[in-house]
């Protein structure tokens, strides 16, 4: 598989995708690009990397801190740090307390849904197996959060 991450350092990151399954990440990016919802999508492979990226530390230490993605698409079951932990740490930090986060996961367990909302997620979207439905779900999430929704403290896109 080719590197899914865009190389567009001048453009601000619009969507951060935290997903440990390469095929799920690839399909998700394909769906987002299909409708031109976002130009600059960054894919991180687990929760620890997502936190490193957002807090600009580790291998992302040189990243401009103000460059906060406009949307985090978050898988739940990931190695090292899972989605719930990522969410908890983000909500505890005032810089990310209001950042739009959408959980996209295979699990439609009531328990997980409730837990996600308790931790302050903005939306919870189960990932369908059927690609047409999957594509539609990703497109709609992208369109809503990137185009329709206004989030407080959104970094102005030049």
């Amino acid at each position, binding site marked *: 598989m080719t590197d899914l991450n865009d190389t567009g350092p001048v453009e601000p990151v619009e969507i951060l995708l935290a997903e440990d399954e390469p*095929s799920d990440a690839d399909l998700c990016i394909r769906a987002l690009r299909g409708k031109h919802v976002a130009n600059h999508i960054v894919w991180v492979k687990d929760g620890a990397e997502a936190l490193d990226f957002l807090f600009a530390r580790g291998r992302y230490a040189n990243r401009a801190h103000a460059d906060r993605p406009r949307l985090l698409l978050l898988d739940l079951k990931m190695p090292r740090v899972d989605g719930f932990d990522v969410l908890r740490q983000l909500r505890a930090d005032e810089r990310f307390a209001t950042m739009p986060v959408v959980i996209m996961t295979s699990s439609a367990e009531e328990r997980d849904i409730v837990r996600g909302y308790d931790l302050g997620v903005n939306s919870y979207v189960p990932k369908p197996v059927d690609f047409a439905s999957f594509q539609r779900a990703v497109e709609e999430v992208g369109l809503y959060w990137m185009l329709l929704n206004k989030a407080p403290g959104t970094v102005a896109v030049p």
Partner: protein
Amino acid sequence: MTTSPAEAYRALFENSLDAVFFTAPDGQVFAANPAACAMFGFTETELCALGREGVFDPADRERAAVAVAGRATAGQIRTVLSYRRRDGTTFPGEVSSRIFTDASGEQRTCVVLRDITEREQMQERLAGQLRQTQTANDQLAAFTNYVVHDLRVPLRALNGYSLTLAADHGDRLDETARDLLDRIGEASRKMDALLEDLLRWSRLGREELRRAPADLSAMARTCAAQLAAGDPDRDVTFRIADGVAGSADPDLIRTVLDNLLGNAWKYTARQPRPAIDFGATTSADGLVTYFVADNGDGFDPAYADHLFQPFQRLHSAEFPGTGLGLASVRRIVERHGGRVWAEAAVDHGATFSFTLDGAVQATGSGPHGCS
């Protein structure tokens, strides 16, 4: 020949399986029956000499004192205390005791004592087994959950890439190739449905039953509307009785209706004028029987019992299904304390009926009362 009351009581005293003592409220023992002697390993004379305090487990003396005081206040008591045998071993005893006044006006007490060691051991064993079963159930559910979610990742890739291939490169494929891609997509959707059923099946066993008043008529109408919306080419007449209600877990009973109405929908596909009825009947003793009847393909009654077994299917692959639908229906209905059965003949439609236990009331109309 007649038996005097004194003789009858003597016989009772001698033959009782429980230990019986005649005592005074202060703890003196006047008489102990053979069962008491066997229980403690003392003779009657020895028990009379020891008195009440001599048979209490010294470690449980505080609770024993509370029990004696309680009996003095209430006149009687029933509780469990710890006792000590001649050999120093102790055992839990269920005791029932009452204060009475004898013929000479003296306060006396009668104590009946039962060794409940075995009962407590049995309860502990049962509780342990229950814990083990619950752990096993939880582990099985966690395993199913894990397997299903992990299997869905490659399945999503299979489906996604076959569709992407058809969409992005379809112009370079001939009809056969596109058909083959369709089949890959179809197979992955089928497997997804199978996984969903498996997941639901495993949830059925562990989720708590939350009973509430449920409007089954409304649920059936919603389900019928969804079936019709999902297959707009078909024209099926639904006759859903008004006011069918019951006390049931709303999510689970919806699954029952989804399955039964979904089956009726599926197996009426070859009928020129398909019709599906939903309603309820109430027997003279108030038991409500709910039913879903169709005029579809029916089935051979010889296989009626197989229908509700998990992973059993009567119809060939012509009709989609995973073999867990009716098994789930039975599991849900039985968890509600009810039962489910089916009546049918080949090509003469099928009727699935079920009951739900408990405070069930249906205000519904008669056998084929329709809205």
